[in-house]
C-alpha cells in the first residue's frame, strides 16, 4: 500500500517557491535565502513551542496537584509564559568572580545549538521536512549527545560546588542513557532497514511499528520513554538539577538570558525526544492506518498530517510530564544500576529478538 493520496503535501507549497526563486536568482543566493527563512522559522517555532510547553507543563502540574496553575496574566494565564520570558530577559547577568568566563558563556550556546540541530531533521508533516538525510536517526542521536557537553562545561565553569556535582551526575547519566535510547530505536531500525526518517515513516503506512512490531516494539517503546526522560534530565531522573539536593544543579550560577537558554534547551530536547519517539514508533505524521481497510484509511487521511504529528508528540510529552509530577527522584547509583543492569541487557536481547523476527519474516 502506498501512502494515502488525500494527505496534504507541503512540498506543493515549498517546491513552486523554490522553483520561482531559482528562476529569478542564482542558485547560491536561492540557497542563502531559503536557509535564512528556514532558520528564522525554526527559531520562531522553537520559541513558540517552548512557551507552549512551559505553559502546558505548568497546567499539567497544576492538574496533578489539585490547583489551577497560572490564571492571572491573560485569559487562563496564557501570557504568563511571555511575562516570565520578559523577566528572564531583563534580569542581571551575574557571574562568579572565579568563574571561567569564556566557558561559562559558551556552555549555554553549546546546549542550545545541540538542541536546534536536532530540530532541523524532524519531519513535521508530509513534505515539511527540512533536512532529510539518509542517516537521520543517527544524526539526531549524535547531535543530542553534544548537549551534555554544555551541561558539563556549565557545571564546571561556574566554580560552584553544587554545579560540579550536578555536572558530574549528568555526565554519567546522559552518556549511559544515550545507549538505551539508541538501542531501542535500533530495534525498529532492524524492521525498517533504513536510518532515513522519511523512509521510516513511509514504512508505517500500513500500520505503526508499535502495532506491527509485536512485543519487541512495545519493549523498545517503553525503554525509549524511560531512557528519553533520563536523557533530557527530567524528573524522576532530574539528578543534574535535583532541586532539593543541589539547589539548582549545573545551572546554579546562571541567571537571566543564559539561564533562559538552558531552560529553552531543556524543553526543545523534550520536544525532540517526543518527536523522535512519535516518528519511530507511532508513525510520525502518518495517519492511523489499518492494512486492508481502504475506506477507513482514506477518512483518516483527511486529518492533516501535521495534526497527526503534533498530536502524537503531545501524547508522549504528556506521558513524560506525568512521570515528572508523580515519581520521586532516583538516586545516582540507582539510575546507573537501572541503565546498566536492566535496560541495557533487556535492550540487547530485544534487539536480537527483532533481528530474529525480521529474519523469519514474522512481522507484518
Amino acid at each position, binding site marked *: 500500500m502506498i501512502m494515502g493520496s488525500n494527505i496534504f503535501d507541503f512540498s506543493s507549497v515549498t517546491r513552486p517557491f523554490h522553483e520561482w526563486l531559482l528562476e529569478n536568482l542564482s542558485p547560491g543566493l536561492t540557497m542563502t535565502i531559503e536557509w535564512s527563512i528556514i532558520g528564522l522559522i525554526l527559531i520562531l517555532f522553537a520559541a513558540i513551542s517552548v512557551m507552549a510547553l512551559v505553559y502546558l507543563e505548568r497546567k499539567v502540574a497544576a492538574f496533578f*496537584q489539585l490547583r489551577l496553575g497560572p490564571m492571572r496574566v491573560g485569559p487562563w494565564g496564557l501570557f504568563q509564559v511571555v511575562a516570565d520570558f520578559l523577566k528572564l530577559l531583563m534580569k542581571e547577568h551575574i557571574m562568579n568572580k572565579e568563574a571561567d568566563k569564556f566557558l561559562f558563556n559558551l556552555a549555554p550556546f553549546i546546549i542550545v545549538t545541540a538542541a536546534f540541530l536536532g530540530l532541523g531533521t524532524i519531519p513535521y508533516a508530509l513534505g515539511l521536512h527540512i533536512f532529510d538525510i539518509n542517516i537521520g536517526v543517527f544524526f539526531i542521536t549524535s547531535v543530542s549527545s553534544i548537549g551534555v557537553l554544555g551541561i558539563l562545561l556549565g557545571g564546571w565553569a561556574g566554580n560552584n560546588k553544587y554545579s560540579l*556535582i550536578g555536572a558530574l551526575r549528568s555526565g554519567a547519566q546522559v552518556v549511559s542513557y544515550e545507549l538505551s535510547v539508541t538501542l531501542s530505536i535500533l530495534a525498529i531500525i532492524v524492521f525498517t532497514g533504513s536510518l532515513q526518517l522519511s523512509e521510516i515513516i513511509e514504512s508505517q503506512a500500513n500500520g505503526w511499528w508499535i502495532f506491527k512490531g509485536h512485543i519487541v516494539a512495545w519493549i523498545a517503546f517503553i525503554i525509549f520513554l524511560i531512557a528519553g526522560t533520563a536523557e533530557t534530565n527530567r*524528573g524522576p531522573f532530574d539528578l543534574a538539577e535535583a532541586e532539593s539536593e543541589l539547589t539548582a544543579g549545573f545551572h546554579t550560577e546562571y541567571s537571566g538570558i543564559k539561564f533562559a537558554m538552558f531552560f529553552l534547551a531543556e524543553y526543545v530536547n523534550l520536544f525532540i525526544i517526543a518527536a523522535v519517539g512519535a516518528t519511530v514508533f507511532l508513525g510520525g505524521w502518518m495517519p492511523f492506518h489499518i492494512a486492508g481497510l481502504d475506506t477507513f484509511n482514506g477518512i483518516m487521511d483527511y486529518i492533516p498530517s501535521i495534526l497527526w504529528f503534533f498530536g502524537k508528540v503531545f501524547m508522549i510529552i504528556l506521558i513524560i510530564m506525568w512521570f515528572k509530577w508523580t515519581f520521586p527522584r*532516583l538516586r*545516582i547509583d540507582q539510575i546507573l544500576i537501572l541503565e546498566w543492569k536492566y535496560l541495557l541487557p533487556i535492550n540487547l536481547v530485544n534487539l536480537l529478538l527483532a533481528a530474529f523476527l525480521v529474519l523469519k519474516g514474522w512481522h507484518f
Partner: protein
Amino acid sequence: MGKTATKSEMKTQEYFINMGPQHPSTHGVLRLVLELDGEIIKQVIPHIGYVHRSIEKMCEFDNYRQIVHLTDRMDYLSSHMNNEAVCLLVENALEIEVSDRVKVIRTIFSELTRLASHQLWWGVMGMDMGALTSFLYGFRDREMINDIFEETCGARLTMNYNVPGGVMFDLHDNFIPRVKKFVTHFKTKLPEYDNLLSDNVIFRERTEGVGYLSKEDAINFACTGPMARASGISNDIRKHKPYSAYDRVEFKEITSEVGDTFARYKMRILEMWESLSIIEQLIDNIPEGEIQAKTNALIKLPKGEFFQSVETARGELGVYAVSDGGKSPYRMKFRSPGFSNMFALDKMARGSKIGDLVAMMSTIDLVVPDIDR
C-alpha cells in the same frame, strides 16, 4: 608543562560542601558542612543557631502567662503541644485541677496539631525526594485542620489556645461537626498518601535500608518521637507518662525494629491513623465543664524545680523550670526534640549518598526554630 604525576604521587582531597544556611531541603536556616568522597558522605557537621532567639533568656524576664506565648515560636508545627507543656508545668506546680472538658479539648487539639504537622511533613518529605505533587496533597488536608483552629481560636499556626488553668475560649459551635467531617475526609485520603509515596517502587528503593539507626544508638543519642520509635524504642510520653486525657483513650504506640528511613516514614503514617482514632474516641463525648480554672492574674510558682514533658509531633519536649518564688522563672530550659534528634544525623548519614541525606533529614522532621530556640 610540568611533568605528569604518577599514580602514587596523585592525591585525592575531600570535597566540602556547605549545605545551607539557605538551601531548599534544610527547612529553614540550618547549615550542614558535608565532607564528601564523590557522592558518598564521609561526615556531616551541622552548624545550628541561625535562628537562636534566646527564648530561655526571655523567659527569665516574662511571667508564666507570657511564656506560653513564646513557646509556640519554637516548634511552630506543634505549637499547641508546646503551649500545653508550659501550662501543664504551671498547673502541676500549683496543683491546679483543670476540668475534664479542658483535658479533652486539649487532647483533641494536640492530636489535630499532630496530624497537621505530619501532613506537612509528608508533603515536604515527598518534595525532598523529588515528588513535588505530594506537597500539595499534604497541604490540601492540612488546610482543613487550620480552618478548624482558626474558627475556634482565631489563629491558624501559633495558636496560643492554652492558658495556665484551661483554654482561652470555649469551642466554636462548628467545631464538632467540622472535626467529624475532617476525620471522615482524611480517612479516605490517607490511603491516597500510601498510593502516591509509600507504595512507590522508587520511593521504597530510596528509603529502605538507608539511614540506619540502631536501638542502642538511638537511646544513646536520646532520640525521641517517631524517629526513636522506628528504632524500636518505646518512649511515647502519651503512653508512659500520660497527661491531659491520654489515660482515657485507647491507642497503640507504634514501634518498629527496622530503624531505616522507611521505618521512620511509616511511623508517622501509622501515627496519623492512631491520632484519627483518638479524635474519634473523644469527639463525641466532650464533657461539660469550666474551660478555665481559677488562677491568679499574676501566677507565681512555689520555690523549687519542675520538669514536664509532652509528646510533640517530633518527640519529647521537656520543660525544666527553676522557680525562686517570683513571677518569672529563675531558669527555664526547653529540651527540644529536634536538638537531640538532629545530633544523630551524622551517625546515620555516614557512608550514604547526598540524596539519602536529604531523605534522612526529612524523616528527622526538622523544624529549625525548635532546634535553635
